[in-house]
């Protein structure tokens, strides 16, 4: 079982979050993480990036189209 380099580690972060790595790779990933403060920082920052992305407000349809669709709904479903 070979060790992961930092350069390999950073490319596996999303697969790690998604739970798609095989058990052997997860073990190598966790071992590397425990020994390498730089990669632990990178992992934490990717995690924070994902949660920051989840805080962005999402725009919806224009008000004009909303009201068009709502009046279509009233007409068709009455």
């Amino acid at each position: 079982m070979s060790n992961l380099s930092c350069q390999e580690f950073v490319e596996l972060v999303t697969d790690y979050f998604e739970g798609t790595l095989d058990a052997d790779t997860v073990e190598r990933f966790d071992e590397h993480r425990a020994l390498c403060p730089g990669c632990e920082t990178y992992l934490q920052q990717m995690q924070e990036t994902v949660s920051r992305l989840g805080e962005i407000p999402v725009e919806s349809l224009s008000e004009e189209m909303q009201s068009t669709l709502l009046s279509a709904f009233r007409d068709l479903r009455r």
Partner: protein
Amino acid sequence: MVTQHTEDAIVAGVRSGDEAVFAQLLNDWSRSMLLLARTFVSTEASAEEVVQDTWLAVIRGIDRFEGRSSLRTWVYRILVNTAKRRGLRESRTVPWSNLTDEERGPTVDPALFRDADDQHPGGWRSFPREWHSAEASVLDSEVRTTVREAIDLLPDRQRIVITLRDVMGHSSDEVCQMLELSGPNQRVLLHRARAAVRACLSSYLEVD
């Protein structure tokens, strides 16, 4: 978010003409529908029309919805069919099946790592710098602006995938179904996009 146990109530609400229920659906789903439509057609205006036509088809067709798939899957399937017909007319196709070599390449600048002949090949030359913690003086609104700008700079496919997954919270399976994308290809695009947003955040959040 619509959960399974509320879905029957939503379908019943739409069927019986409950405007509040329909307004909530419009509000919750239209943004990701716009994004998805935009991948098949050539302008924002076309995408808006596709979403409008989809909602009209939903209003007219809800009585035929049999609950064999989730309501959302049913609605998004109508959207994709509508958008594809329109995309054909506009001869616009976004290729989702094949990733370029560039998209498969490294997501972190290789110059940050030690060379192959180094004692520790592929190790950090210097560790990534720590970020300011959430409690520090950095304003959340400024961070959100930085994240938004970073997303806008991404190539189409990465922008669409990261928005559907991380901003809107769709699951991996949902996004693969919506975009007819394989799981591995979706993860490649998502990972590239996240790494790019992280790099932008880094220049903003790094401790001096």
